């Protein structure tokens, strides 16, 4: 029996979060866009982006302190792998204008064909990569 309750609850919370941001201030919660914008531009418009990132980190710190068992997963990858993956994620999400949150959580719900194509493409690329990594 696969564990689906917490993933579903977590997913609903992510939906709630992006709905709050869209209804509240009219913005799409796209994480690569938020991060990419704050590191490359310095406008007053970035206030909500910093606040959003602060909320994300505060949530993580609170959970790390109160429920450390949720952070026991391993994160063991070689340094070259981390660097290559990081560069691909950073460059790729900006070139493709979004990641799992912007294209996935928000774009699919807006019924954007562009996001639908992006999600199918990065999922397929991720699946091929995992498969190749396993057989090589």
């Amino acid at each position, binding site marked *: 029996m696969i564990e689906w309750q917490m993933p579903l609850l977590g*997913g609903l919370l992510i939906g709630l979060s992006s709905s709050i941001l869209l209804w509240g201030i009219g913005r799409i919660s796209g994480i*690569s866009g938020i*991060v990419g914008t704050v590191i490359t531009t310095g406008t007053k418009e970035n206030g909500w982006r910093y606040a959003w990132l602060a909320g994300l980190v505060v949530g993580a710190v609170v959970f790390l302190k109160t429920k450390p068992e949720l952070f026991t997963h391993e*994160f063991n990858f070689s340094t070259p792998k981390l660097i290559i993956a990081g560069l691909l994620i950073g460059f790729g999400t*900006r070139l*493709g204008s979004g990641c799992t949150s912007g294209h996935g959580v928000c774009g699919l719900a807006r019924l954007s064909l562009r996001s639908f194509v*992006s999600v199918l*493409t990065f999922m397929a690329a991720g699946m091929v990569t995992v498969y190749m*990594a*396993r057989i090589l």
Partner: protein
Amino acid sequence: MELIIGFISGLIFSIGLIISQMIDPQKLIGFLDILGNWDYSLAFVLGGAVGFNLITFRFIQKRKSLIGKDLCLPTNKAIDNKLLLGSVLFGIGWGLVGVCPGPALVNLVTLKSEIFILMGSILIGMFGFNLFEKKRA
């Protein structure tokens, strides 16, 4: 007001990523491993989030935001090489380490050196894209 709403949204997003185990790279790699021992539990994360928004966005998109501004929605509809190549590159990186940008940020609080190397490289990749755009312009 913008700041408070932004903060609350980020906070709830963080909780969602943590309790759903999206922040566990092995779990995510298991989700992408459809030809192996496929663990499809994380499909419920995207399903739950998109399902929720499918309902709420219909209501929200007909209105102005609570702070009185028009919604700032993407207008680009082009399915072009940039979209496809960007998505492929992101997907490869995602498959290599099992975290997308949100979970990478959340994992920073574990203070493991690996996550800082990854996040630093993500930021360099984003900067690199900006340089690339400026050169082309």
